[in-house]
């Protein structure tokens, strides 16, 4: 990569770390360190929530998914605006008004200490592990592209993030998120402009090509529980997933607890509701655009350069025959692509069908190449995550590759920082202060908070170094939380009904987790998006029955 691109990346890193160091002023008290003194404006909280949720996987994996699979993944987010509105009316006023540090702290006030500790522990376990995968996902791609050792890539993302999160607390994290969000959106828009300028055919013709291969099919109304991305799984499953994530995951809750007032906290969530679906559609459209670009310009057979080298070294004969087939399939496809725009209105549909067949032929050679790469290297290829990085490095004009790289770092760092900060808050408030040192002075808790942030950071980096061989980047991160998210949301919903009690909540929580665990192992065909619906239903049902039968005392 050209040195100017590296300079852009270096400047970005220096600005983020420097800004974090500047914001250490507010970190003299616990409320300052963990909640930015509850004085962040709604728009900063809103951008921070969005930046946290937009990880490097979104920029690398989701764009790649757009290129290979098209737009239907956007259905996953259909429930998000609904969830944000519901949370704004229900949970946010409860949590913000309770003046708590963690969402789980509220559960002790309403129920008892064991419900609080169990939910907080579940958060620490699942988020501690997933923080590792959030670093690992882009680190693996960086290492393969630049030929670095994985440890260096993990350090490039981990060390600056740990530094500004430890020193600046949530205030540094939130303001860094605001800048990071700007870099991310700028990089995405820059790619869109470059793509549109460089299409050899008019945009309308190009979109017809994408449509012919099914990539512009957004809505799938089939009601099939085994399909992950359908309209219904997005609206129902997605709503419950987002309710659980934004309502009970400390990494999100902590953002809006830092807002000035309940109204500002709600408005910050609505900002995500505004922009998430359009932004996600843009991310996927970038992927579709890259697919269209490569319909006219020869694309690499294997996008992952490390795998491409390994195959060239160890199976040169097989590679040569695949390359020959691939070359022929590519030129047939690009001829078919050009033919569609010169065809008259009557021949247009035949020409598009021919293009779709040629595209399928290209895909079939790539499938064989991926199988060969998997056999030679012994690891699953995950080639989809390399499509966009390769396009950026090979095709973008000077400087823009640096901006995109900075954007990937920004996306990774904003997600990691929020996780570290919230993991530290839950560790200190829900465990250290609650169980070991209830009378600890503020200075001690603050020191514990900084130490916990650093330790979780190191833990995440270690996990990242070993998590490299984990499966699909997107689904792993989503799946991890999904097992327990719904059950935890169920407990919060029980908390809002006055007639439930501590025994009901705890028994309900256990029942919900067992039910979701049983479904995920016993009925693997059911898509993970439905786990949260099941979890919420079981926890609320069992919790309500046990509370009513037990006849416990009503809520204070």
């Amino acid at each position, binding site marked *: 990569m050209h040195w100017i691109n590296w300079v852009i990346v270096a400047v970005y890193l220096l600005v983020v770390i420097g800004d974090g160091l500047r914001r250490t002023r507010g970190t003299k008290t616990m409320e300052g360190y963990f909640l930015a003194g509850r004085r962040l404006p709604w728009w900063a909280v809103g951008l921070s929530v969005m930046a946290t949720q937009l990880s490097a996987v979104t920029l690398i994996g989701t764009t790649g998914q757009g290129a290979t699979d098209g737009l239907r993944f956007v259905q996953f987010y259909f429930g998000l605006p609904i969830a944000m509105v519901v949370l704004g009316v229900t949970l946010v006023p409860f949590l913000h008004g309770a003046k708590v540090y963690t969402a789980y702290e509220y559960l002790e006030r309403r129920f008892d200490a064991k419900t609080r500790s169990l939910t907080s522990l579940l958060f620490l376990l699942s988020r501690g592990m997933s923080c590792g995968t959030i670093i690992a996902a882009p680190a693996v791609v960086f290492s393969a592209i630049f030929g670095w050792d994985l440890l260096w890539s993990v350090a490039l993302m981990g060390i600056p993030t740990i530094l500004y999160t430890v020193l600046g607390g949530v205030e540094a994290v939130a303001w860094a998120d605001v800048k990071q969000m700007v870099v991310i959106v700028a990089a995405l828009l820059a790619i869109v402009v470059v793509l549109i300028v460089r299409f050899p055919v008019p945009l309308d013709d190009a979109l017809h090509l994408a449509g012919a291969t099914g990539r512009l099919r957004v809505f799938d109304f089939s009601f099939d529980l085994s399909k992950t991305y359908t309209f219904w799984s997005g609206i129902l499953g997605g709503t419950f997933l987002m309710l659980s994530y934004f309502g009970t995951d400390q990494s999100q809750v902590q953002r809006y607890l830092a807002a000035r007032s309940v109204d500002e906290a709600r408005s910050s969530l609505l900002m995500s509701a*505004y922009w998430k679906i*359009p932004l996600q559609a843009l991310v996927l459209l970038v992927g579709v655009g890259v697919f269209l670009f490569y319909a006219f310009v020869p694309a690499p057979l294997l996008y992952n350069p490390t795998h491409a080298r390994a195959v060239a070294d160890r199976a040169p004969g097989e590679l040569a025959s695949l390359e020959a087939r691939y070359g022929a399939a590519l030129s047939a496809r690009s001829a078919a692509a050009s033919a569609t725009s010169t065809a008259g209105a009557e021949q247009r549909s035949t020409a598009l069908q021919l293009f779709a067949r040629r595209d399928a032929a290209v895909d079939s050679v790539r499938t064989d190449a991926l199988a060969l790469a998997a056999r030679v290297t012994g690891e699953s290829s995950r080639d989809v995550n390399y499509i966009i990085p390769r396009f950026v490095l090979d095709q973008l004009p000077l400087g823009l590759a640096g901006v995109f790289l900075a954007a990937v770092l920004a996306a990774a760092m904003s997600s990691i920082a929020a996780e570290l900060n919230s993991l530290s808050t839950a560790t200190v408030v829900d465990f250290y202060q609650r169980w070991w040192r209830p009378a600890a002075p503020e200075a001690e808790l603050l020191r514990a908070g900084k130490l916990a942030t650093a330790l979780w950071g190191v833990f995440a980096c270690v996990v990242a170094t070993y998590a490299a061989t984990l499966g699909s980047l997107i689904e792993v991160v989503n799946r991890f939380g999904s097992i327990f998210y719904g059950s935890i949301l169920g407990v919060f919903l029980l908390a809002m009904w006055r007639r439930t009690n501590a025994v009901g909540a705890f028994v309900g929580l256990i029942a919900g987790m067992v039910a979701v665990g049983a479904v995920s192992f016993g009925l693997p065909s059911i898509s993970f998006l439905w786990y949260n619906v099941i979890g919420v239903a079981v926890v609320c049902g069992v919790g309500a029955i046990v509370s009513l039968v037990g006849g416990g005392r009503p809520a204070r």
Partner: protein
Amino acid sequence: MPSRFRQTLWRVMLVQVVTLLALWMLQSRYAT
């Protein structure tokens, strides 16, 4: 319900409807 939230709510719904409509039009025009 406080003011800013309620004001924003309608705009949020409008943006979602417009986005979904745009995606629907994209699909019906190009997906064959």
